[in-house]
């Protein structure tokens, strides 16, 4: 789905296979080559359709993060019952000594 005029603005070029592979990695998804091709085509089509907003002048328009504008929603600093550990650990794929067990992690957290 390439832009026939050849003047695709930066940041709105159709998504490439490499970008799909990169994004899949960021999202911890592994794709086969066939899937990579297929998804690239499908995602490019969706993004291409989304280019209809390109022409809109939204420079002075503020973004909407919430449709209903609430502010300062908080709760008092009061202890409430925690959940039963057994009930939670029973759902763990692998548990040991009341903790969640995972294979080696490879490196420190960012």
């Amino acid at each position, binding site marked *: 789905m390439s832009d026939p005029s050849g003047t695709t603005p930066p940041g709105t070029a159709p998504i490439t296979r490499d*970008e799909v592979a990169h*994004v899949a990695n960021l*999202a911890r*998804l592994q794709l086969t080559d066939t899937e990579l091709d297929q998804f690239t085509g499908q995602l490019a*089509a969706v*993004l291409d359709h989304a280019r209809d*907003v390109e022409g809109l002048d939204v420079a002075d*328009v*503020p973004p909407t993060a919430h*449709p209903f504008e609430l502010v300062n929603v908080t709760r008092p600093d009061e202890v409430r019952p925690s959940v039963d550990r057994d009930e939670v650990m029973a759902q763990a794929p692998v548990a040991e000594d009341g903790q969640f067990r995972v294979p080696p992690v490879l490196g420190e957290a960012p």
Partner: protein
Amino acid sequence: MTATTTTASAIAAAVRSGSRSAREVLEEHLAAIEAREPELHAFNLVTGDAARASADRVDAAVAAGEDPGPLAGVPVALKDNLCTRGVATTCSSRILEGWLPPYDATVVQRLAGAGAVIVGKTNLDEFAMGSSTENSAFGPSRNPHDTSRVPGGSSGGSAVAVAAGFAPLALGSDTGGSIRQPAALCGVVGVKPTYGAVSRYGLIAFASSLDQIGPFANTVEDAALLLEVIAGHDPMDSTSIPRPAPDLRAGLHRGVEGLRVGVVRELTGDGIAPDVAARVTAAADALSAAGAKVTEASVPAAIYGLSAYYLIAPAEASSNLARYDGVRYGMRVDAPNTPDMNLATRTAGFGDEVKRRIMLGTYALSAGYYDAYYGKAQKVRTLIIRDFAAAYADVDVLLSPTSPTTAFAFGAKSDPLTMYLNDVCTIPSNLSGDPAVSVPYGVGDDGLPVGVQIMAPALGEDTMLRVAAALEATR
């Protein structure tokens, strides 16, 4: 239809007065389920035993002279993305297969408090991503009017449950039309409330700024009854509007004399099948005959809704679904290290549509693309909100089709983009946060149900349902 087409309002009244037992009502519905569920697959799980215990409790309360609640003995089906403690909640995904939540969603608690009897968890498109239930990991649901057709989605199972008489009420969730579109395709009433009117605590998130839980019912009055029970401020949800549940039934049948109805220009025309458009025209005429002032209205930015939605929703979803990593619950596919375990688990556990949206969303948020995609979409959202507000300066409610077509055949919309176009009429009100309802209004050329959509300004459910009820009365 079966004998189970008594309304929820009637059932509740009968059970409360003691003239019918909750147990008897339940058995009737369980029998209906048994008869047609194998064919329709509305449910991922039927919770017969637990339902019987609930029904017995209701009957005991009535016998003891206690107030059993406004939904006493009414069977209710829950979309399987609503957390039910100790009861499997899968989102129709392999990655959550077998997961038992250790808590109930707020709406589930409210239903229990109202005396409702939960009969089961209904099928959906995986993680609520889809418009047909064809994306369910456990097989699609089928439209009761024609089983070769989809029921719509993502809350297809709930729509089927009500349309097929399995339960007079069901809950679904609506992010881009997932209650209204299946309601239209199955010929039932479906409501998406104002964003924040119903607590999302316990609704497994798809797109946080768009998701809302809402009712399916056979009548507008029943939908209003259910909405009254589940709506109202919840301190567990920061986005919950700080107001109590509204009274929606008091003025429901007041009629539409003098109300101004605007038919949305941008949602008629090319993208809409002629037989569907004809039903919207008929609805407009009927409302006019009933005393409403019907005019044309315009929401120009609505045509950009699809684009904005398919950037915002997947972006939020890509983040909301990151937690499914095989560490704490759900499926785990082992690997020598955790990153590879995450990779293997998510790759095996998610279906294609979910993967597609996660990648689309990750891309829209990624470095270098944020401004062009997600950032811009949030601004388009503002334009849509402004255009709706401008339209509502001149009308009280807006009218449009719910779905561009009647129910399509399985496999007919295999191309993702084609499938996304199903949501063109419903998406704008998800982006604006305003309420909307689909009311069944006749059939298309193929004899399949057509739904007509009524939209209202934020917190305008009472006016919106009043118009819906008036329309329903003209059928």
